[in-house]
Protein backbone atom coordinates (compact mmCIF):
# COMPACT_ATOMS: atom_id res chain seq x y z
CA UNK A 1 0.00 0.00 0.00
CA UNK A 2 1.23 3.41 -0.86
CA UNK A 3 1.38 5.88 1.93
CA UNK A 4 2.12 9.54 1.82
CA UNK A 5 4.87 11.05 3.87
CA UNK A 6 2.23 12.83 5.96
CA UNK A 7 0.81 9.53 7.18
CA UNK A 8 4.16 8.55 8.50
CA UNK A 9 4.60 11.81 10.25
CA UNK A 10 7.52 12.71 8.04
CA UNK A 11 8.24 16.18 6.74
CA UNK A 12 5.98 16.90 3.75
CA UNK A 13 7.73 17.34 0.41
CA UNK A 14 8.54 20.92 -0.26
CA UNK A 15 6.06 22.55 -2.68
CA UNK A 16 7.38 22.71 -6.21
CA UNK A 17 8.66 26.07 -7.34
CA UNK A 18 6.56 27.97 -9.86
CA UNK A 19 7.85 28.53 -13.37
CA UNK A 20 6.50 31.84 -14.54
CA UNK A 21 6.59 33.58 -17.88
CA UNK A 22 6.88 37.30 -17.38
CA UNK A 23 5.86 39.66 -20.15
CA UNK A 24 4.37 43.11 -20.53
CA UNK A 25 1.21 44.52 -22.02
CA UNK A 26 1.08 48.25 -22.58
CA UNK A 27 4.09 48.62 -20.30
CA UNK A 28 2.50 46.66 -17.43
CA UNK A 29 4.47 43.63 -16.32
CA UNK A 30 2.55 40.50 -15.52
CA UNK A 31 3.16 36.80 -15.17
CA UNK A 32 1.45 33.54 -16.01
CA UNK A 33 2.48 30.00 -15.16
CA UNK A 34 4.75 28.57 -17.83
CA UNK A 35 2.49 25.57 -18.42
CA UNK A 36 -0.25 27.99 -19.48
CA UNK A 37 1.86 29.39 -22.33
CA UNK A 38 1.83 27.61 -25.69
CA UNK A 39 4.37 29.80 -27.45
CA UNK A 40 5.24 33.28 -28.59
CA UNK A 41 5.27 34.46 -32.21
CA UNK A 42 5.21 37.74 -34.08
CA UNK A 43 1.68 39.15 -34.00
CA UNK A 44 -0.26 38.29 -37.17
CA UNK A 45 -2.96 40.63 -38.39
CA UNK A 46 -6.17 39.96 -36.51
CA UNK A 47 -9.58 39.84 -38.14
CA UNK A 48 -12.32 41.46 -36.08
CA UNK A 49 -15.19 39.13 -35.20
CA UNK A 50 -18.53 40.62 -34.19
CA UNK A 51 -18.98 39.47 -30.63
CA UNK A 52 -20.71 40.27 -27.39
CA UNK A 53 -18.31 38.11 -25.38
CA UNK A 54 -16.21 40.44 -23.23
CA UNK A 55 -12.64 40.86 -24.48
CA UNK A 56 -12.97 38.23 -27.23
CA UNK A 57 -13.63 40.00 -30.49
CA UNK A 58 -11.14 38.84 -33.12
CA UNK A 59 -9.34 35.82 -34.52
CA UNK A 60 -5.84 35.39 -35.85
CA UNK A 61 -4.62 32.85 -38.31
CA UNK A 62 -1.33 31.05 -38.15
CA UNK A 63 -1.00 28.62 -41.00
CA UNK A 64 -3.99 26.32 -40.80
CA UNK A 65 -4.73 27.25 -37.23
CA UNK A 66 -7.34 29.82 -36.19
CA UNK A 67 -7.12 31.25 -32.69
CA UNK A 68 -9.55 33.51 -30.89
CA UNK A 69 -7.97 36.69 -29.57
CA UNK A 70 -8.26 37.71 -25.94
CA UNK A 71 -7.93 41.49 -25.65
CA UNK A 72 -5.84 41.60 -22.48
CA UNK A 73 -4.80 45.19 -23.16
CA UNK A 74 -8.43 46.22 -22.99
CA UNK A 75 -8.92 44.35 -19.73
CA UNK A 76 -5.90 46.14 -18.29
CA UNK A 77 -7.00 49.43 -19.87
CA UNK A 78 -3.68 49.96 -21.64
CA UNK A 79 -2.56 49.98 -25.25
CA UNK A 80 -0.09 47.56 -26.74
CA UNK A 81 2.60 49.07 -28.89
CA UNK A 82 1.47 48.89 -32.51
CA UNK A 83 5.04 48.36 -33.63
CA UNK A 84 5.77 44.65 -34.07
CA UNK A 85 3.89 43.30 -31.06
CA UNK A 86 4.15 39.64 -30.12
CA UNK A 87 1.47 37.01 -29.92
CA UNK A 88 1.46 34.94 -26.76
CA UNK A 89 -0.49 31.71 -27.04
CA UNK A 90 -2.54 31.15 -23.91
CA UNK A 91 -3.32 27.55 -23.12
CA UNK A 92 -6.78 27.11 -21.76
CA UNK A 93 -9.06 24.18 -21.15
CA UNK A 94 -11.46 25.29 -23.88
CA UNK A 95 -8.63 25.71 -26.38
CA UNK A 96 -5.74 28.07 -27.05
CA UNK A 97 -6.18 31.82 -27.36
CA UNK A 98 -3.95 34.52 -28.78
CA UNK A 99 -2.96 37.46 -26.60
CA UNK A 100 -1.25 40.53 -28.03
CA UNK A 101 1.70 41.58 -25.88
CA UNK A 102 4.43 44.21 -26.03
CA UNK A 103 7.34 43.62 -28.41
CA UNK A 104 9.74 42.60 -25.66
CA UNK A 105 10.72 38.97 -25.37
CA UNK A 106 9.00 37.28 -22.41
CA UNK A 107 11.33 35.88 -19.77
CA UNK A 108 11.13 32.72 -17.72
CA UNK A 109 11.46 32.98 -13.93
CA UNK A 110 11.32 30.36 -11.24
CA UNK A 111 9.99 31.43 -7.89
CA UNK A 112 9.55 29.52 -4.68
CA UNK A 113 5.91 28.58 -4.15
CA UNK A 114 6.07 30.04 -0.67
CA UNK A 115 7.17 33.33 -2.14
CA UNK A 116 3.91 33.63 -4.08
CA UNK A 117 1.50 35.80 -2.17
CA UNK A 118 -2.12 34.90 -2.76
CA UNK A 119 -4.41 37.40 -4.43
CA UNK A 120 -6.98 39.10 -2.23
CA UNK A 121 -10.40 37.49 -2.05
CA UNK A 122 -12.69 38.59 -4.85
CA UNK A 123 -9.88 38.99 -7.33
CA UNK A 124 -11.17 37.52 -10.57
CA UNK A 125 -8.16 37.37 -12.88
CA UNK A 126 -5.11 37.40 -10.61
CA UNK A 127 -4.18 34.31 -8.61
CA UNK A 128 -1.23 35.79 -6.76
CA UNK A 129 1.75 38.11 -6.71
CA UNK A 130 5.45 37.51 -6.83
CA UNK A 131 8.48 39.72 -6.55
CA UNK A 132 10.76 40.05 -9.54
CA UNK A 133 13.63 42.29 -8.59
CA UNK A 134 12.10 45.20 -6.81
CA UNK A 135 8.83 44.89 -8.65
CA UNK A 136 5.71 43.10 -7.51
CA UNK A 137 4.22 41.32 -10.49
CA UNK A 138 0.64 40.00 -10.61
CA UNK A 139 0.26 36.37 -11.69
CA UNK A 140 -2.68 35.89 -14.00
CA UNK A 141 -4.58 32.72 -14.75
CA UNK A 142 -5.98 32.38 -18.26
CA UNK A 143 -8.69 30.10 -16.95
CA UNK A 144 -10.08 32.97 -14.92
CA UNK A 145 -9.55 35.74 -17.46
CA UNK A 146 -12.56 37.80 -18.32
CA UNK A 147 -14.76 36.05 -15.79
CA UNK A 148 -16.90 38.00 -13.39
CA UNK A 149 -17.20 36.90 -9.75
CA UNK A 150 -20.71 35.71 -10.67
CA UNK A 151 -19.26 33.44 -13.38
CA UNK A 152 -16.87 31.92 -10.90
CA UNK A 153 -19.64 31.35 -8.38
CA UNK A 154 -21.68 29.60 -11.07
CA UNK A 155 -18.76 27.34 -11.93
CA UNK A 156 -18.29 26.39 -8.31
CA UNK A 157 -22.01 25.69 -7.98
Amino acid at each position, binding site marked *: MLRTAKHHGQTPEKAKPWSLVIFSVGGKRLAVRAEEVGGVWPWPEAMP*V*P*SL*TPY*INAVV*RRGEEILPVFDLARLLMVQVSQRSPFCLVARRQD*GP*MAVCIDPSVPTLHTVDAQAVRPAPAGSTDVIGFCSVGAEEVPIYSWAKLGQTPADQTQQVA
Partner: protein
Amino acid sequence: MSLRGRTEQVAPALGAMQVLVVTCGKTYLAIPGAVVRGVVESAEAIEARIISLFGESCRVTDLAARLGLPPSPATPDARIILCGEHRAKQAWQVDRAIGLTDVDLQRITPLPPHFAGVEQSWFTGLFLFRETVALLLNPGWLLSQPMDAFIAQPQIEGAVADAPAAASEQPVAVDAPITSPPPKARKKRPARKTTTGDDAPLDVLENLVLEESTDVEDGQAPWADA
Protein backbone atom coordinates in the same frame (compact mmCIF):
# COMPACT_ATOMS: atom_id res chain seq x y z
CA MET B 1 -29.16 50.73 -61.98
CA SER B 2 -28.02 47.21 -62.35
CA LEU B 3 -30.65 44.60 -62.81
CA ARG B 4 -29.44 41.31 -61.59
CA GLY B 5 -30.89 38.15 -60.33
CA ARG B 6 -30.56 34.46 -60.21
CA THR B 7 -32.78 32.32 -62.35
CA GLU B 8 -30.95 29.05 -62.37
CA GLN B 9 -29.01 27.03 -59.91
CA VAL B 10 -25.64 25.50 -60.40
CA ALA B 11 -25.12 22.91 -57.72
CA PRO B 12 -21.86 23.18 -55.86
CA ALA B 13 -19.59 20.19 -55.73
CA LEU B 14 -20.68 17.36 -53.47
CA GLY B 15 -19.70 18.01 -49.89
CA ALA B 16 -19.21 21.67 -50.60
CA MET B 17 -21.20 24.78 -49.89
CA GLN B 18 -21.33 27.74 -52.21
CA VAL B 19 -20.93 31.04 -50.42
CA LEU B 20 -20.76 34.68 -51.39
CA VAL B 21 -17.81 36.27 -49.62
CA VAL B 22 -18.20 39.92 -48.69
CA THR B 23 -16.33 42.30 -46.45
CA CYS B 24 -17.41 44.70 -43.74
CA GLY B 25 -14.32 46.65 -42.79
CA LYS B 26 -11.58 44.12 -42.15
CA THR B 27 -14.03 41.31 -41.49
CA TYR B 28 -14.67 38.70 -44.16
CA LEU B 29 -18.17 37.29 -44.07
CA ALA B 30 -19.57 34.44 -46.12
CA ILE B 31 -23.26 34.33 -47.02
CA PRO B 32 -24.61 30.92 -48.03
CA GLY B 33 -25.27 31.07 -51.78
CA ALA B 34 -28.62 29.34 -51.30
CA VAL B 35 -30.14 32.53 -49.89
CA VAL B 36 -28.42 35.05 -52.16
CA ARG B 37 -30.85 36.45 -54.70
CA GLY B 38 -28.75 39.18 -56.21
CA VAL B 39 -26.09 41.79 -55.84
CA VAL B 40 -26.81 45.45 -56.47
CA GLU B 41 -24.15 48.05 -56.88
CA SER B 42 -26.31 51.10 -57.44
CA ALA B 43 -25.07 54.12 -55.57
CA GLU B 44 -28.60 55.53 -55.71
CA ALA B 45 -30.09 52.50 -54.03
CA ILE B 46 -27.38 52.49 -51.43
CA GLU B 47 -27.99 56.13 -50.72
CA ALA B 48 -31.74 55.69 -50.64
CA ARG B 49 -31.31 52.64 -48.40
CA ILE B 50 -34.37 51.07 -49.90
CA ILE B 51 -34.85 48.65 -52.74
CA SER B 52 -37.65 46.70 -54.34
CA LEU B 53 -37.44 42.97 -54.08
CA PHE B 54 -40.19 40.59 -55.21
CA GLY B 55 -42.32 43.63 -55.89
CA GLU B 56 -42.13 44.82 -52.30
CA SER B 57 -39.97 47.55 -50.94
CA CYS B 58 -37.25 46.35 -48.67
CA ARG B 59 -35.08 48.53 -46.53
CA VAL B 60 -31.38 48.16 -46.81
CA THR B 61 -29.58 47.41 -43.58
CA ASP B 62 -25.93 48.01 -42.98
CA LEU B 63 -24.58 44.58 -42.11
CA ALA B 64 -21.60 46.00 -40.23
CA ALA B 65 -23.84 48.13 -38.05
CA ARG B 66 -26.15 45.23 -37.34
CA LEU B 67 -23.21 43.12 -36.23
CA GLY B 68 -21.76 45.92 -34.14
CA LEU B 69 -18.69 46.39 -36.32
CA PRO B 70 -17.25 49.88 -36.66
CA PRO B 71 -18.60 51.82 -39.63
CA SER B 72 -16.46 52.07 -42.74
CA PRO B 73 -16.24 55.10 -44.98
CA ALA B 74 -18.52 54.90 -48.02
CA THR B 75 -16.74 53.69 -51.12
CA PRO B 76 -17.82 52.88 -54.68
CA ASP B 77 -17.18 49.22 -53.82
CA ALA B 78 -20.26 49.10 -51.57
CA ARG B 79 -22.87 46.55 -52.60
CA ILE B 80 -26.35 45.53 -51.56
CA ILE B 81 -26.76 41.80 -51.13
CA LEU B 82 -30.31 40.66 -51.66
CA CYS B 83 -31.16 37.63 -49.61
CA GLY B 84 -34.36 35.66 -49.66
CA GLU B 85 -35.90 32.33 -48.97
CA HIS B 86 -39.61 31.54 -49.08
CA ARG B 87 -41.30 34.70 -47.77
CA ALA B 88 -38.32 36.01 -45.85
CA LYS B 89 -36.19 38.61 -47.53
CA GLN B 90 -33.53 41.08 -46.52
CA ALA B 91 -31.23 43.53 -48.23
CA TRP B 92 -27.83 43.99 -46.62
CA GLN B 93 -25.28 46.62 -47.43
CA VAL B 94 -21.67 45.50 -47.34
CA ASP B 95 -18.42 47.27 -48.09
CA ARG B 96 -17.43 44.96 -50.87
CA ALA B 97 -18.50 41.75 -52.58
CA ILE B 98 -15.53 39.51 -53.24
CA GLY B 99 -17.31 36.73 -55.09
CA LEU B 100 -18.70 33.25 -54.93
CA THR B 101 -16.61 30.34 -53.88
CA ASP B 102 -17.19 26.71 -53.00
CA VAL B 103 -16.16 25.77 -49.51
CA ASP B 104 -15.50 22.18 -48.61
CA LEU B 105 -17.83 21.44 -45.69
CA GLN B 106 -14.98 19.72 -43.88
CA ARG B 107 -13.07 22.98 -43.90
CA ILE B 108 -15.81 24.76 -41.99
CA THR B 109 -15.16 24.71 -38.28
CA PRO B 110 -17.42 25.96 -35.52
CA LEU B 111 -16.78 29.33 -33.94
CA PRO B 112 -14.35 28.70 -31.06
CA PRO B 113 -16.15 28.10 -27.76
CA HIS B 114 -14.42 31.16 -26.31
CA PHE B 115 -17.05 33.15 -28.17
CA ALA B 116 -19.74 32.49 -25.63
CA GLY B 117 -22.31 35.11 -26.48
CA VAL B 118 -25.12 35.61 -28.93
CA GLU B 119 -22.53 35.66 -31.75
CA GLN B 120 -22.74 31.86 -31.74
CA SER B 121 -26.17 32.30 -33.33
CA TRP B 122 -24.89 34.80 -35.92
CA PHE B 123 -22.29 32.47 -37.38
CA THR B 124 -22.46 28.80 -38.18
CA GLY B 125 -18.70 28.54 -38.45
CA LEU B 126 -15.56 29.86 -40.04
CA PHE B 127 -13.07 28.72 -42.62
CA LEU B 128 -9.69 29.65 -43.99
CA PHE B 129 -10.09 32.06 -46.88
CA ARG B 130 -7.11 33.26 -48.86
CA GLU B 131 -4.64 34.69 -46.34
CA THR B 132 -7.30 35.27 -43.73
CA VAL B 133 -10.47 33.76 -42.28
CA ALA B 134 -14.10 34.12 -43.31
CA LEU B 135 -17.05 33.88 -40.95
CA LEU B 136 -19.99 31.90 -42.24
CA LEU B 137 -23.20 33.80 -41.53
CA ASN B 138 -26.18 31.88 -40.28
CA PRO B 139 -28.82 32.23 -43.02
CA GLY B 140 -31.57 31.85 -40.45
CA TRP B 141 -30.27 34.86 -38.56
CA LEU B 142 -29.73 36.82 -41.77
CA LEU B 143 -33.33 36.33 -42.86
CA SER B 144 -35.03 36.62 -39.51
CA GLN B 145 -34.04 40.13 -38.56
CA PRO B 146 -37.18 42.06 -37.62
CA MET B 147 -38.14 44.67 -40.16
CA ASP B 148 -39.21 47.06 -37.40
CA ALA B 149 -35.62 47.45 -36.45
CA PHE B 150 -34.91 48.89 -39.86
CA ILE B 151 -37.32 51.77 -39.56
CA ALA B 152 -34.95 53.85 -37.51
CA GLN B 153 -32.47 53.89 -40.34
CA PRO B 154 -32.19 56.97 -42.54
CA GLN B 155 -34.04 56.69 -45.79
CA ILE B 156 -35.48 58.66 -48.62
CA GLU B 157 -39.21 58.08 -48.46
CA GLY B 158 -39.74 59.19 -52.03
CA ALA B 159 -37.69 56.31 -53.24
CA VAL B 160 -40.38 53.92 -52.09
CA ALA B 161 -43.15 55.71 -53.87
CA ASP B 162 -41.20 55.86 -57.09
CA ALA B 163 -40.22 52.25 -57.00
CA PRO B 164 -41.78 50.21 -59.76
CA ALA B 165 -42.91 46.80 -58.60
CA ALA B 166 -40.92 43.82 -59.71
CA ALA B 167 -42.77 41.32 -61.81
CA SER B 168 -43.99 38.54 -59.62
CA GLU B 169 -43.12 35.87 -62.16
CA GLN B 170 -39.49 36.84 -61.94
CA PRO B 171 -38.72 35.45 -58.53
CA VAL B 172 -35.24 36.81 -58.25
CA ALA B 173 -35.40 39.99 -60.25
CA VAL B 174 -34.30 43.17 -58.64
CA ASP B 175 -35.74 46.34 -59.97
CA ALA B 176 -34.82 49.92 -59.61
CA PRO B 177 -36.35 52.05 -56.91
CA ILE B 178 -35.23 55.14 -58.72
CA THR B 179 -36.01 56.01 -62.32
CA SER B 180 -33.80 54.08 -64.63
CA PRO B 181 -33.83 53.21 -68.33
CA PRO B 182 -35.95 50.16 -69.21
CA PRO B 183 -33.95 46.98 -69.05
CA LYS B 184 -32.77 45.52 -72.29
CA ALA B 185 -33.65 42.00 -73.28
CA ARG B 186 -32.13 39.41 -71.02
CA LYS B 187 -28.96 37.90 -72.25
CA LYS B 188 -27.78 34.71 -70.68
CA ARG B 189 -24.07 34.75 -70.09
CA PRO B 190 -22.11 31.56 -70.10
CA ALA B 191 -20.74 30.40 -66.79
CA ARG B 192 -17.13 31.39 -66.58
CA LYS B 193 -14.26 31.72 -64.26
CA THR B 194 -12.90 35.11 -63.72
CA THR B 195 -10.50 36.88 -61.53
CA THR B 196 -11.50 39.43 -58.99
CA GLY B 197 -9.43 42.40 -58.02
CA ASP B 198 -7.49 40.28 -55.59
CA ASP B 199 -4.85 37.72 -56.30
CA ALA B 200 -6.74 34.47 -56.12
CA PRO B 201 -9.23 33.50 -58.82
CA LEU B 202 -12.74 32.75 -57.70
CA ASP B 203 -15.74 31.29 -59.39
CA VAL B 204 -17.47 34.59 -59.32
CA LEU B 205 -21.21 34.23 -59.08
CA GLU B 206 -21.20 31.51 -61.66
CA ASN B 207 -24.69 30.51 -60.80
CA LEU B 208 -26.14 33.89 -61.41
CA VAL B 209 -27.71 34.57 -64.73
CA LEU B 210 -27.19 38.22 -65.10
CA GLU B 211 -29.67 40.47 -66.60
CA GLU B 212 -28.40 43.14 -68.91
CA SER B 213 -27.24 46.02 -66.87
CA THR B 214 -27.26 49.67 -67.81
CA ASP B 215 -24.06 50.42 -66.02
CA VAL B 216 -21.92 47.43 -66.72
CA GLU B 217 -20.11 46.78 -69.90
CA ASP B 218 -20.08 43.44 -71.58
CA GLY B 219 -17.37 41.16 -70.40
CA GLN B 220 -17.01 42.92 -67.10
CA ALA B 221 -17.80 40.96 -64.01
CA PRO B 222 -20.32 43.44 -62.63
CA TRP B 223 -20.45 42.05 -59.12
CA ALA B 224 -16.75 41.86 -58.64
CA ASP B 225 -14.36 44.57 -57.80
CA ALA B 226 -12.44 45.99 -60.67
